[in-house]
């Protein structure tokens, strides 16, 4: 893995000045290598595990792709899925971002048209690696627009293996983000390209690329807010030009029209608040354009008058529009903001009001270590990149800086959006490294040539040898250093690197200024800093390969653990899904917490009550309530939903921490949000969540507890839960309304069946009949009463 990078890193500074054919070929060759690198570093999951779809959402995307490839595009748009959200169902065609599915579907169609019999699954597994290769090429283009080829290659190489992106695009991770990052970077590239050239052709392409992004991911709102921000920035800093107008106006008009074509977006493209900034900036841009136009026509005196006129009119129009918008927004129920967007603007919003968003781990704010884990040394290179962007500040480089700043903010709100930060960090680090190398190599060259020139004049034959020896030294020690850095243990490296990074940032920040005046550094200093930079790169490569191989390749449906006897495989999820799919009736409904909804529909092909597309909070709350109710009440809720089987995930036997008991508090919270008789404090003992002997009776009697720990005590006689690390509270109990029908090998998934209602006893029925008038009324009252209220 490391070799292509070393290749990429070595020529990177050179092509900036090699403006000949050789440079072009080298550059293309390097790009191909970068693509191969980006693809192959993501194959660890296939090699270490198997070619399988990962995690939760990818299973849904996979299922949609299967449907698309089987039934065609028109069926797909009209697909009403009755396998999920029972009894509501879900209109898939209108509620899904179709970009990924259509992409994979057309790849599959194309490949099959060539008579290569690949299965849909294979295509889906490898879509993400393919698109990350393309994304790294897009990064090259974008960075090249801002800072030249060298920086472009550097950034592409860095992006090809940035852990943050790898985490979302390993083979099998078939999720929207996989293609969306490419679309994001490519849209930015086209925007910057238009900004640099002022070509309408690129502007149109930009709108199309934006359309693809809208198709692919809800994160397109980032684009439609970032670009207006940049336009505004340009206007405010007096950088307005006709190129800016061409870059922006077609994007808003065409882009919005195209975005409205995507069923899931539709009129949201003009109605929700996420898009208003772009329209506002659109108006401002026109006003500014008008002002500039008038300025060209009129004499300064007249211009001043006209200026005041335009500004007053413009302001009036702006206010009117803003007022209308405010009125519109205020009339819409959520104030025009979706919950996720609100939680972006106010990071505490979700945890206060929408537990369902807060319950997802990838919506939590990241911790500091996760920054180091995900972007590693880039975090230290980025400031240098920002400085380099200001020398000199162009439209393109100001865009980079703006992109980075906003992305940093968003990544601070949600772990998930670290992904948006990754390309920005890569681009800026690429710029930083490239300009650092540029300065260093130039000064080295200069110094050496000076030595060559001065040498013969001062001391006949001594110094030329010395200088040539030193060049040899540099090249050889470079190689040595890269090798060393790859081999050296990590702890040492990280410590060292922190120090180095400080040096690097300082040196980078100081050097370019010097370069302007002197463009020379002392030879020794530049050699040492080059070596340090290469070491830094080596450390980054080692970290990325480690992250790709160890941290981010697990498919999460198959777990492995290493023990002394060797690798142990936990394949319980698929065992359970296979059992469900073969041994239950095809129309049976399976209730589980929503995390497992997508997998159940995709792998077991059974109807689920709720799934990972959490669009109906009430429905999820109903399931949450059932899980946190006592058995009888839960049975009634499930029976009213026509549920036949209940599936719980239990990790207590083998120590699998993300099981339903650990998620249970969220069920209580979400359930309690809709049905007030579920109260969170009832499940907590002195504010602590526990299931041991100290736990509250409500906790020990709820369905989730019972289903998880049913007969658990008989395994070891004590009921020791390995996740929680203590013995469970209530050990011996029986189930009256549920029966165990299947438990997987490691007990990780347990499936229960709802027992059919018992027949009424004859005598009782007669009694009821005799008191007919009375009972009928009470019965009716009982019927009417909602069982879970």
């Amino acid at each position, binding site marked *: 893995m490391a070799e292509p990078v070393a290749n990429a890193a070595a020529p990177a500074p050179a092509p900036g000045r090699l403006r000949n054919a050789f440079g072009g070929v080298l550059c293309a060759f390097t790009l191909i290598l970068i693509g191969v690198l980006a693809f192959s570093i993501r194959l660890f999951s296939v090699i270490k595990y*198997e070619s399988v779809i990962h995690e939760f959402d990818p299973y849904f995307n996979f299922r949609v792709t299967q449907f698309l490839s089987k039934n065609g595009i028109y069926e797909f748009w009209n697909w009403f899925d009755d396998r999920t959200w029972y009894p509501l169902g879900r209109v898939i065609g209108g509620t899904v971002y179709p970009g990924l599915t259509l992409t994979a579907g057309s790849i599959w169609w194309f490949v099959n048209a060539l008579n290569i019999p690949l299965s849909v699954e294979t295509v889906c597994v490898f879509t993400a690696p393919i698109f990350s290769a393309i994304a790294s090429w897009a990064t090259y283009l974008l960075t090249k627009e801002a800072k030249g080829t060298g920086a472009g290659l550097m950034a592409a190489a860095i992006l090809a293996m940035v852990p943050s992106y790898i985490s979302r695009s390993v083979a099998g991770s078939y999720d929207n983000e996989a293609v969306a990052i490419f679309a994001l970077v490519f849209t930015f590239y086209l925007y910057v390209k238009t900004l640099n050239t002022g070509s309408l052709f690129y502007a149109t392409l930009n709108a199309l690329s934006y359309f693809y992004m809208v198709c692919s991911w809800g994160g397109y709102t980032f684009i439609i807010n970032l670009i207006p921000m940049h336009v505004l920035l340009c206007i405010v800093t007096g950088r307005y030009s006709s190129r800016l107008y061409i870059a922006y106006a077609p994007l808003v008009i065409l882009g919005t029209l195209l975005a409205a074509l995507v069923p899931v977006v539709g009129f949201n493209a003009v109605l929700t608040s996420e898009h208003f900034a772009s329209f506002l900036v659109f108006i401002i841009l026109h006003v500014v354009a008008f002002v500039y136009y008038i300025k060209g026509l009129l004499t300064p005196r007249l211009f001043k008058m006209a200026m005041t006129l335009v500004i007053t009119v413009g302001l009036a129009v702006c206010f009117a529009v803003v007022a209308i918008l405010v009125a519109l927004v205020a009339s819409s129920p959520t104030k025009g903001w979706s919950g996720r967007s609100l939680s972006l603007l106010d990071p505490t919003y979700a945890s206060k009001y929408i537990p369902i968003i807060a319950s997802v781990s990838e919506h939590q704010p990241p911790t500091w270590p996760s920054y180091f884990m995900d972007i590693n040394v880039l975090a230290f290179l980025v400031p240098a990149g920002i400085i380099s962007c200001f020398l000199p500040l162009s439209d393109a480089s100001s865009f980079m800086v703006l992109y980075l700043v906003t992305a940093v903010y968003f990544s601070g709100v949600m772990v998930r959006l670290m992904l948006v930060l990754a390309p920005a960090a890569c681009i800026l680090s690429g710029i930083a490294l490239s300009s650092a190398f540029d300065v260093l190599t130039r000064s080295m060259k200069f110094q050496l040539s000076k030595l060559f020139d001065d040498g013969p004049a001062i001391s006949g034959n001594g110094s030329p040898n010395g200088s040539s020896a030193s060049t040899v030294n540099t090249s050889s020690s470079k190689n040595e250093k890269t090798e060393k850095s790859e081999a050296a243990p990590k702890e040492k490296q990280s410590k060292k690197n922190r120090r180095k990074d400080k040096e690097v940032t300082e040196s980078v920040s100081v050097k370019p200024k010097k370069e302007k005046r002197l463009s020379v550094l002392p030879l020794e200093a530049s050699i040492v800093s080059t070596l340090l930079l290469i070491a830094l790169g080596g450390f980054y490569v080692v970290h990325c390969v480690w992250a790709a191989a160890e941290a981010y390749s697990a498919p999460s449906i198959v777990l492995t653990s290493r023990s002394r006897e060797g690798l142990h495989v936990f394949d319980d999820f698929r065992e359970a899904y*296979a*059992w469900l799919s073969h041994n239950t009736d095809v129309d049976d409904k399976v209730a589980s917490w929503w995390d497992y909804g997508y997998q159940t529909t995709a*792998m077991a092909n059974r109807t689920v009550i709720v799934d990972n597309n959490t669009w109906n909070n009430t429905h999820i709350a109903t399931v949450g309530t059932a899980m946190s109710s006592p058995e009888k009440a839960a049975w009634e809720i499930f029976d009213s939903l026509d549920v036949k089987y209940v599936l719980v995930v239990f990790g207590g036997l083998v120590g699998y921490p993300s099981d339903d008991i650990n998620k249970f508090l969220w069920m209580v919270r979400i359930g309690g949000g809709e049905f007030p008789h579920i109260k969170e404090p009832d499940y907590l003992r002195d504010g602590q969540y526990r299931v041991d002997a100290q736990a509250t009776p409500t906790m020990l009697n709820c369905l989730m507890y019972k289903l998880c720990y049913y007969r658990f005590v*008989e395994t070891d006689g004590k009921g020791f839960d390995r996740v929680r690390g203590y013995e469970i509270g209530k050990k011996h109990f029986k189930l009256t309304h549920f029966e165990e*029908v299947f*438990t997987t090998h490691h007990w990780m998934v347990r499936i229960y069946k709802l027992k059919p209602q018992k027949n009424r006893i004859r005598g009782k029925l007669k009694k009821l009949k005799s008191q007919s008038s009375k009972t009928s009324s009470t019965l009716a009252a009982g019927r009417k009463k909602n069982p879970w209220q």
Partner: protein
Amino acid sequence: QVDLTSHIVRVLTSLKVENAGSEPVSKVLLAFPNIQAKNLAAIRAFGTEGKVKGLSSVLPIEVVEPSGVPPELTFFSASLHKPLQKGKILHLDVLTVFTHFLQPFPEEITQADSQLVVFQDSSHYLSPYPVKVQTLSIRLPGGRVESYTKYGNTKLVDSELKYGPYEDVPPFSYNPIIVHFENNNPFAVAKELIREIEISHWGNVQITEHYNIVHGGARLKGEFSRLDYQSRPYARGVSSFRHLIARLPARAHSIYYRDEIGNISTSHLWSDSKKTQLEIEPRFPLFGGWQTTFTIGYGLPLQDFVFSADGKRFLNITFGSPMEEILIEKLIVKVVLPEGSKDIDVSAPFPTNQWQEVVPHWTIDN
């Protein structure tokens, strides 16, 4: 002699046929009740003439409907290679294999119960000819025998049940017997098996087998408790089976075992120069009535199976499944020939439905 040790009933009938009539006889009629004939999977007859048991030869067998016989019987006739002269004696070994013959009773059992099955047959050999001396021995799998029909000379020794000898039994005599016994052997039934045999020019025969397996024994009633299954696997869950063994040809390679949701990691493989033995465990133990599907695939060297003669090439390969003790209800064999194959001719030892279709493929393999 009846072998009831597995869920497939194998009956080996050794007959000593004497031509008591005057005319030479060229055919021997074998009779089965219709209910049995329905479950008959295979019938094979070997005949040797004369006193000494020498080389036996396979006799062709066909279904016949002679006149003047009860309609409840199905007749097969084994044609002899040469007519049997008057007074001559012929040794005839008839091997019959029945499926779905053992009825589980009770039909639903709990996890802790063991599986009891019922076998029904006649203690007399059903034949259109008079029988002089006849015995019946039934081999049981061992374990508990719930009940069996007792006649005068019935003996149960260990796991062998003996009826007879009976002497001078008239034609078409039927003497029903019922044996109710414990049989916990895997009742693996493949509801459908699709075998794809793909021949590539590049020296490889790729075989892919899609199984849809069901446990054909007594259905599981009530709960399945993993706890009981794990703590006392022999007492609780004795009627289930958890693995199947496939005997693949020698030099099988690139073996995989998966189902539609991915690789199944529970399998073992042994191989030597004679055979390759693959033990596969389905994702979950199969109890009565439970189903599962899986796919196994393997590659075989081309030169072991394809021979060429007269400018033509012949593929000689096993028709059925390599699994042991498995009953296949529906078998589809697809043979994918290389592009441009012509003059396709198939010979199978029994009648099959055949069709051809052209599917374009780009074969990319070694």
